[in-house]
């Protein structure tokens, strides 16, 4: 992230160390992950040791310390989705794209994530691809949802 941009984020939160969580969220929103180098500058400028930044960044599941893929596919693993077959969907995507939950494909095209519950249980099982919700997913429907991605990957 360029310096000016980072400063805008820091100033938005008055460079307040207790706003660290919000600062990290803003960085991740811009960069899709938390680049190490950016964290170093945050540490210097708001006077918070790296160890604390890392302890926050690893504690909360919303953060990623590794670059994430161009596309992000999130499978809801809430209880309602679980009883309606969500684990099979994670396996299916894993198989089709050769990726594990929480990881990114080698070509950086796709990150597969799981989330505890997005509160749209009526639609379960549910897959969110790049922010768009796809509900009542079956293996066949999932194939359709992921078709374009598959093509892109070649």
């Amino acid at each position, binding site marked *: 992230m360029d310096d000016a941009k980072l400063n805008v984020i820091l100033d938005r939160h008055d460079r*307040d160390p207790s706003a660290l*969580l*919000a600062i990290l969220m803003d960085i991740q929103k811009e960069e899709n992950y938390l680049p190490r180098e950016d964290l170093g500058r945050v540490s210097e400028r708001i006077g918070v040791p790296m160890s604390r930044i890392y302890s926050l960044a690893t504690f*909360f599941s*919303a953060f990623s310390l590794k670059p994430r893929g161009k596309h992000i596919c999130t499978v809801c693993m809430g209880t309602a989705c679980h009883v309606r077959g969500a684990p099979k969907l994670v396996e299916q995507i894993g198989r089709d794209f050769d990726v594990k939950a929480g990881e990114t494909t080698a070509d950086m095209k796709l990150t597969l994530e799981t989330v*505890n519950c997005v509160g749209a249980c009526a639609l379960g099982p549910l897959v969110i691809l790049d922010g768009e919700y796809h*509900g009542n997913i079956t*293996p066949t429907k999932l194939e359709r949802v992921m078709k374009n991605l598959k093509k892109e990957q070649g």
Partner: protein
Amino acid sequence: MAKRLQSTKELLSLQEKIGASRDPEQKVVSVCAGTGCCAYGAKKLAEAFASSIEGHGLEGEVALRLTGCHGFCERGPLVVIHPEGTFYQRVQLDDVDEIIEKSVQAGEVIERLLYADAGGKTYEHEKDVPFYKNQQRILLANNGLIDPTRIEDYLAIGGYRALAKVLDEMEPEEVCAAVKASGLRGRGGGGFPAGVKWESCRAAHSPDGVRYVICNADEGDPGAFMDRSLMEGNPHLVIEGMIIGAYAIGMPGKPKGYVYIRNEYPLAVERLGIALEQAREMGLLGEKILGSELDFDIRINKGGGAFVCGESTALMASIEGEVGEPRAKHIHTVESGLHDLPTNLNNVETWANVPLIIDRGVDWFTSIGTGDVSDNPWGGSKGTKIFALVGKVNNTGLVEVPMGATLRHIIYEIGGGIIGGKKFKAVQTGGPSGGCIPEEKLDLEVDFDRLTEVGSMMGSGGMIVMDESTCMVDIAGYFLHFLADESCGKCVTCREGLKQLCIIIDRIREGKGREGDLTLLQDLGETIAEASLCALGQTAPNPLRSTLKYFREEYEEHIRNKKCRAGVCKALIRYSIDAEKCTGCLICARKCPQECISGEKKKPHVIDQDKCIKCGVCMDVCKYDAVCVE
């Protein structure tokens, strides 16, 4: 937007003005824009309505309103035509022009879009549909009527009237006393009487008069979404409750407010943000609220996706910018919470009840619910509770019933029974620390104490219905893994103990369970409960306890007979094709990722068990129900 209101009088006269300017005969197309309906494409639908209204030259005549969640998410997208109140469900883009022409302009009812029950009977009005008819909606009552991004809509239905009443007529102590007398108990899990908490926080010493008033909107229980729906659909109700709380707890003094909200709820964050901004502009937040002595504002704090941050002390640590680890509570947070100052934390739904109690009175509130709270706030459960009815039930959605409604009423009368006519097995309540309740307890009258008696708990109100195809060992394993992942790691028992429980239950799921494993699970579970710091660890063995108590034979079958009767645990099942039913359509063979299904066209197919990875794709694609699992 209107200017800052200087007094309660100005507020009340503005309300009157808005009320008088509203034409009850106004034609309104109201589109549900809750998360559920949005996922079904409600936003595009609303755009289509807007352009259709314009296309038909009806701009001045017909209004379009985007509302919060109506609760019947199963049937989304939902559209209601006012003033008739015609209720359309599963509305598609193609239906838009027809609705405008036939329903809005000609006043006809489009039969095809009405809700039809299993017997084919259709219902024209929302209130008559069995899903709604059997509920008592007081908190959710207005979700379908108001546009949550317009404060005028809330004012038009009497919003902020309770705040005016409090500022005009009540001393802070009287407000605390009223909340205590109402018997309102915390909706976030524990069921602690809200009035008692308020009084202790009020009485606690604060060196410079600062007291924090926090709304817990972390809603971490999987399968619960009532808090989200309240914030998305009627954010001012929650805000009004918090302002009243700030007055009751913090005056005279300097109350400060926070809402701690999940990052996974972008729409709720957005709507709440808009509502706060509007309340500020109108002088309902900020300095000298409605001309009174009360200075109070509310900040939004976004959580980072950690379940344990819903716990009170972890939540406060997280607002302070620390890692969300709980601390020992020998000093209560009402005395020393956020920044070591007196802090009152309540759940979203708890706050939402407050304006209603003040507005309609304590007697009205105590007339709903169970028990007697006249001299003991723990004496019963008063008011309503919103449940998220999900899982293998026909009518998924948000259900608000009086405390004391039976499980059977909720699941069968409102929920319409089990999907596909399958057999009910259990209902899970209370989130990861709750329990599974079996069929013989279906007549249980649901309130805080009855649920605890059967080994479950209220939690935040998730109700996950399970049928014969749900494996109880698998479910217990699901919750144990959930909790092991979410343990903050501070206590050894919780961190390591849960890991061990997962290992044991996984081996049972894999058919490698040993005699004695059940005793081991139980003993280890009890140790974790006893030796852990916060409620996450203390209640972690609950899902185990209840499934072992009510469904022990399923565990035993897994261990002794290597059998999973629900057909879930992969290692214990096999897929096969029923030669009688198979038409030889070739589809499964084409779709099988292992290419392990063979057979000729129009002849029964067979699965090569050695190669099959039990992915279930064949079962999903077969149109003839020929693939079975055993």
